[in-house]
């Protein structure tokens, strides 16, 4: 045992260890530069989640270092050696009380802090939020934006079929106006309210950069997900609930753009569906934008 410890502390071994660890990070460095930290965070709620994350990170790191430091010290200091006898003790009630109470207080405090944030994140979406219907299926995503009237056609989950994948009413004039895409384009700086649906099995809407995960449950509308993106960028929706053979590749692009670009993207599509499209649109044709 002692020989083994000695050989670990030997400089040559340490140098090798340092090399082995940096080699991995250097390899990744060439690709992105972010292998140890969290991915970029682009939503307001996400930043708060990160703050809570860092609180727990430092708390657990401190506990880990303290307990494991003590533990390793005990393991070395109280190893078997000649003439040494163990101390006869069955425990200490005072210590038991201390190490029961202290974690209880810390854990309850964490639960309160966490649940406050949980409530804040799930407060009702602000009135000015932009509403988008997100519909998942084996194995892809479709988004439904409001048409020229600015209102999403009403839907009913019970009406969802292969012929009517969004569950909207074909007789309703709003239905024909809806803009259907396979990518999620959203304006930065404005709250976006998602209506999450599934047409078959449970999928999940997961975007690590948004710090957002929510299952899409068939037969239900999940209406409590909303967020505000803080900056523009390109991301991906990932299905993160095992949903069948194509699950691993069930993704869709997300483009967070400026409000201006957003209008420029959405307007022509709305006008096209309304039958009033400009003869010469100043944006690329729909197919170019929506094809993955």
């Amino acid at each position: 045992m002692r020989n083994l410890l000695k050989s670990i502390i030997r400089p040559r071994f340490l140098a090798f260890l340092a090399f082995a660890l940096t080699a991995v990070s250097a390899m990744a460095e060439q690709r992105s530069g972010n292998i140890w930290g969290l991915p970029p965070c682009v939503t307001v709620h996400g930043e708060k989640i990160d703050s809570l994350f860092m609180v727990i990170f430092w708390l657990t790191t401190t506990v880990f270092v303290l307990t494991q430091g003590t533990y390793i010290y005990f393991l070395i200091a109280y190893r078997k050696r000649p003439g040494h006898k163990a101390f006869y003790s069955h425990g200490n009630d005072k210590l038991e009380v201390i190490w029961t109470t202290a974690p209880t207080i810390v854990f309850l405090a964490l639960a309160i802090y966490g649940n406050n944030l949980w409530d804040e994140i799930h407060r009702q979406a602000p009135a000015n939020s932009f509403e988008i219907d997100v519909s998942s299926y084996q194995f892809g995503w479709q988004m439904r934006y409001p048409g020229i009237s600015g209102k999403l056609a009403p839907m009913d989950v019970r009406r969802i079929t292969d012929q009517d994948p969004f569950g909207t009413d074909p007789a309703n004039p709003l239905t024909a106006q809806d803009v259907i895409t396979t990518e999620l384009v959203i304006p930065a700086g404005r709250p976006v309210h998602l209506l999450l649906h599934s047409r078959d099995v449970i999928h999940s809407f997961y975007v690590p950069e948004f710090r957002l995960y929510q299952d899409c449950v068939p037969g239900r509308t999940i209406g409590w997900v909303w967020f505000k993106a803080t900056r523009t960028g390109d991301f991906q929706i990932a299905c993160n609930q095992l949903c069948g053979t194509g699950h691993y590749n069930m993704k869709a692009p997300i483009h967070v753009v400026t409000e201006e670009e957003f209008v420029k993207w959405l307007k022509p599509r709305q006008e096209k569906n309304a039958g009033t499209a400009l003869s010469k649109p100043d944006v690329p044709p729909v197919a170019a934008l929506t094809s993955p």
Partner: protein
Amino acid sequence: MSATITAGTPIVETGHGHGHGKHGLMHYLWNTDHKVIALQFLFSAAFFLIVGGAMAVAMRWQLAFPGHPIPVIGHLLPSTIVSDDGALIPGGYNMLVTMHGTILVFFVAMPVLIGVFGNFLIPLKIGAGDMAFPTLNEISYWLFFVSGVVMMGSLFMPGGAPGTGWTAYAPLSSFAKYNGTPLGQTLWCTALFLNGLSSLTGAVNYITTVITMRAPGMTMFRMPLPVWAIFITAILLILAIPVLSAAAALIIFDLNFGTTFYKPSGGGQPLLWQHLFWFFGHPEVYILILPAMGLTSEILSVNSRKPVFGYKAMVWAIIAIGALGFIVWGHHMYVSGMNLTLSAAFGVSTMVIAVPSAIKTFNWMGTIWRGNIHYTVPMAFAVAFVSMFVIGGLSGIFMAATPIDLFVHHTYFIVAHFHYVLFGGSIFSAFAAIYFWFPKMSGRMFNNTLGWIHFWMTFVFFNLTFFPMHNLGLAGMMRRIADPTVYDCLRQVQPLNVVCTIGAMGLGLSTIPFLVNMFMSLAKAPDAPANPWNSTTLEWTLSHPIQHGNFPVIPTVYHGPYEYSVPGLERDFLPQNEKAPENITLEVH
């Protein structure tokens, strides 16, 4: 029954003796002796460990080198899982995910911790001749065996094994059109049903045995901690398993008979499955860790030559974990579409259940504090268990906080977390216990050098495999995806996937010194002393081979299980069946 047992009563072999006197293979195939049943479970679990572990290595290969043919085992897998050149196909990857999880939980961790050590230790440690219902005990093993055959059979069904994960979320699992593997899924459910029956019959036996067959003087609070832990675990099994069995039966109905329990278009509820599954599934987590905690506590105490620190606190912590374990299942479902306030409530109960785990950790540290630590191979695994459990416990706090689950739910962070608890915890302690009781089970000492090689390989490669998974998860890597490189944000962390895979291969290789050690040691003549670790509990008072019926004379117990280094005694241990000399007072605890 306990009233009729008095000290000094010779055990009369009555109906217990069926297995006695048989020779050859039959001795090991049908035997009502709890010690032989333990061995049956042990060898079956070792087989499943190899199968389930190989599946994990195949998955890791695919994650590090997507689409490349798997060396060695690629061609052994059926065509539903691999392409012609031996590379995993996405559907096959899902099948391996499902089978790996199911096999490791139901066919490795449970049989080793409960089937092997429950069976082997309970009667020996409480001074009983056998289990209360020996025949039922053997039936329990054979139900387990049949369920294993059915589970493995699903791999060879048309369509293949189910690819719905060990959690089998409905309606993916309950509707043939969605999963494409109705036969495999039906067999999976059938296997879990049979496996559940096996667990229930085992649990009934453990509970009855512990309550009614303790030797004179063996009060509840004189029972060794492994017995306490497995006793509480058995109660959890009785309460949790029927829920899973019923839920699995409903999946069989939905799949084959057109019912719609989980299908919304027929009036069913997809979340019903999740509630039922996790009502079983969370106690299941504790079913896997409580016995591990009990076994570890004892091994730490024996090898530190010190009484377990806070024995009663340890017992109460086990009971608290068992009770609280039934009100935390919703923390698997924070983001499932369940009521949000319910999520918050489960967040609180989840934080609370961390307390007894913390208590246990502090008591383990207290146990080695000022001890006289003997570094044996079982001790090494037990020592590592505590550290691995601490890492797994601390990473659990992240997920327990409801908002953080929005970020890390179903990522590799959770994969890292539960492997630290289930592998670093349950499997490490299983290894510790196998080494510790190997001399008692086989009458032979194992090879120390091979044991140390096994320990260091397991320890290093385990951490190399699973620690980087925390980073992968925080980078946003989803669990259960066959190819991470299809995502832009994951391509940049691909080197970490390679590291994990190297670790997994090493972990696979680490099994070789273990198996070689066990089989080499079994091949030699019995050479182990009756009490190689100078332990205090009753099983070490018996020398090899232990007859069916165990104790020639029922022992009397005079004190608690962990009287080590009692001042004034020449030896540093005082067996439970030996009275302390008049001039020595034992500490009351």
